[in-house]
């Protein structure tokens, strides 16, 4: 029996790595992948608490999070393709059409 704290520690570690990736990387694809890492950290916490409280509601919410991740990946990659076609760049800090 593994203490629930360990799942929280693993979840927060994965979340922190994801946040570092979102904040520091320039490549848009790697930023999208870091968001997937963050969503997985959330899922680990949900499943950990679901097992602690002996209720499957947390796992159901994890399924909804995975659904969101699928929608987000489809939209994000569609946006990325549209962007790359117009701007020929993968770097997030070069996409400054609305800045002046």
């Amino acid at each position: 029996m593994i203490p629930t704290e360990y799942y929280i520690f693993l979840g927060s570690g994965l979340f922190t790595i994801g946040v570092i990736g979102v904040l520091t990387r320039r490549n848009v694809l790697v930023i999208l992948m870091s968001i997937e890492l963050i969503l997985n950290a959330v899922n680990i916490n949900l499943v950990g608490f679901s097992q602690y409280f002996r209720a499957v509601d947390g796992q159901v919410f994890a399924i909804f999070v995975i659904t969101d991740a699928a929608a987000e990946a489809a939209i994000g990659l569609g946006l990325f393709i549209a962007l790359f076609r117009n701007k020929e760049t993968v770097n997030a800090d070069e996409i400054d059409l609305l800045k002046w």
Partner: protein
Amino acid sequence: MLPLIAFGILSVVALVSAILVITRRNAVHSVIWLIVTLFAVGGIYLMQHAEFLFAVQIILYVGGIMVLFLFVVMLVNLDVAVRQAQFRRQWQLALFTVLLLVGQLAYVLYNRGRGLDLPARPSLPEPLRNTQAVGQVLYQNYMLPVEIASILLLVAMVGAVIMAKRKLE
């Protein structure tokens, strides 16, 4: 003891490959390491008797979303990006923000030595068939969220098609 060792191995694999995801120069390598992370997280689900979620993780995440990522990475010419700087100029500020986040998380998790302070664990028996239990909760208690999720997926599908189209007429 054995579950603890398995959990340790799985979490080390997940964390190390997550660090590799955000540090690799080539986006294809990042995708491959992300797949390793997702498999390790799936193993952690399996250890918690969430077998249905494990199957969803493998089929949907690794089989669906990651293939989509790999497809886009292959579609885009990354030769130029590989030779450019990989990190933003404000990375010091970003790391400072992350340190603040880590401090907050550590403060909450430490909680003056009391740990998480969870309410008492209910003494219910563990549901025997995980997939059956998930299905019942999903289609009885969470009927409306399921419908909302289906509309979300429809909107995402239409949006992806429109955005990837060459020209709107």
